[in-house]
């Protein structure tokens, strides 16, 4: 198996409590912004598994996920100089770009064919397990899962459906039988709890 996994996120491996993948990524991004292709290649090696895995989780189709990831990295390369460390980690900046592209992809596809929410709802737990086989075992992933387990069920489902499923909060509300308008609160509450448990973003 390839060694470029999330377990090796930065040169110094992430300390307990340190933001995942924080070391070095910002510096590599800055160098990429100056046209340093080697720095960008290193950046790719450190982040691609997370970006691609996220794209796969949202769009499901591997070929489309590859396209999404490719487009995202091109955008990251092109706009690297616009990354501002004061506004967040390089990892979250890169994954925000990737996630947005993945979501754009499924939503534009939906304009033609609306997804069957009931079907997705029923299969949601199955999907969760199905991706697990491909998930790289890592301490960080374990910590994140533990933190997610500490959310209420509805928070956990709302966050997962929104971020990993790529659904809008209105769709999430329907899928979880929540009154319209409350899903976004659950998403926020869940993310806040995850954030505080993991000690990031403060």
């Amino acid at each position, binding site marked *: 198996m390839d060694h470029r996994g999330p377990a090796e996120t930065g040169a110094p491996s992430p300390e307990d409590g340190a933001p995942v993948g924080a070391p070095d990524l910002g510096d590599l991004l800055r160098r990429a912004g100056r046209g340093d292709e080697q720095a960008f290649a290193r950046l*790719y090696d450190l982040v691609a598994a997370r970006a691609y895995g996220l794209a796969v989780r949202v769009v499901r189709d591997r070929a489309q996920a590859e396209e999404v990831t490719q487009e995202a990295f091109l955008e990251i390369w092109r706009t690297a100089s616009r990354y501002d460390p004061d506004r967040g980690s390089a990892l979250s900046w890169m994954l925000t770009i990737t996630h947005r592209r993945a979501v754009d992809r499924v939503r534009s596809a939906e304009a033609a064919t609306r997804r069957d929410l009931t079907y997705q709802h029923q299969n949601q737990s199955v999907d969760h397990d199905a991706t697990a086989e491909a998930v790289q075992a890592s301490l960080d992933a374990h910590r994140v899962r533990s933190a997610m387990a500490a959310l209420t069920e509805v928070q956990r489902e709302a966050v997962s459906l929104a971020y990993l499923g790529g659904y809008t*909060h209105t769709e999430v509300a329907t899928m979880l039988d929540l009154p319209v308008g409350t899903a*976004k609160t659950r998403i926020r509450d869940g993310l806040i709890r995850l954030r505080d448990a993991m000690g990031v973003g403060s």
Partner: protein
Amino acid sequence: MTTPQEFHAMTGAYAVDALDDTERAAFEEHLTECPDCRAEVASLREAAALLAETTAIEPPAALRDRVLADITSVRPLPPEVPAPVVPLAERRRRRPRLLLAAAAAVVLVGAGAVVWQQPWDDSSTTQLTGAAAVLAASDARSTSLDFPSGASATVTHSDSLGEAVIVTKKMPAPPAGKVYQLWLDQPGVGMVSAGVMPVEEDQTVLLTGDAATATGAGITVEPEGGSDAPTSKPIALFDFGRSKA
């Protein structure tokens, strides 16, 4: 309309791209004037990014080759050049610091300081002779805006040609029944319509009106067909870098 409290409740959904286009546009406008929401969105994005740890999959090696081949033909954008922002709208004129603070969410790129060099995707401009002429003008000056959503807009103006061009990338569609309208800020007159943008994510549009006299350009969301004067706050303002004196 949406209250500040309702906006504050949207930070999580916004951070994970779970707002629809209309909500997102409204929330991004709120973000420009709410440092609390900006900070919370940033922190929740950090939290969401952690979830990618649990779904990581090693991509095919061929993807790496494609990405690294791609970048050799794409020029990285120049960095943002901090420059004094001369606000265009009266509302902002009274609160220039707020506009600067807003740059945390809506990135204002150095006013008029960046010379456009068609860093990518020149195919969209080649047939547009009017626009291409502006973009290629020796005195072309560009001002760019990056939206947190990933959309971007760049206005390039040439004083010698007296024309301006807007190039947009990945612009979300305007709300139903609405259009994006372009404006030129003319001294002593105010915002004068410079046309309505076609609904396409990626656009290269020549602004109507005299760009040589204009001090800036703006985009507002207007009812279909456009308005004679802006009826909503601009979603983007581009300063042409002229002294107001």
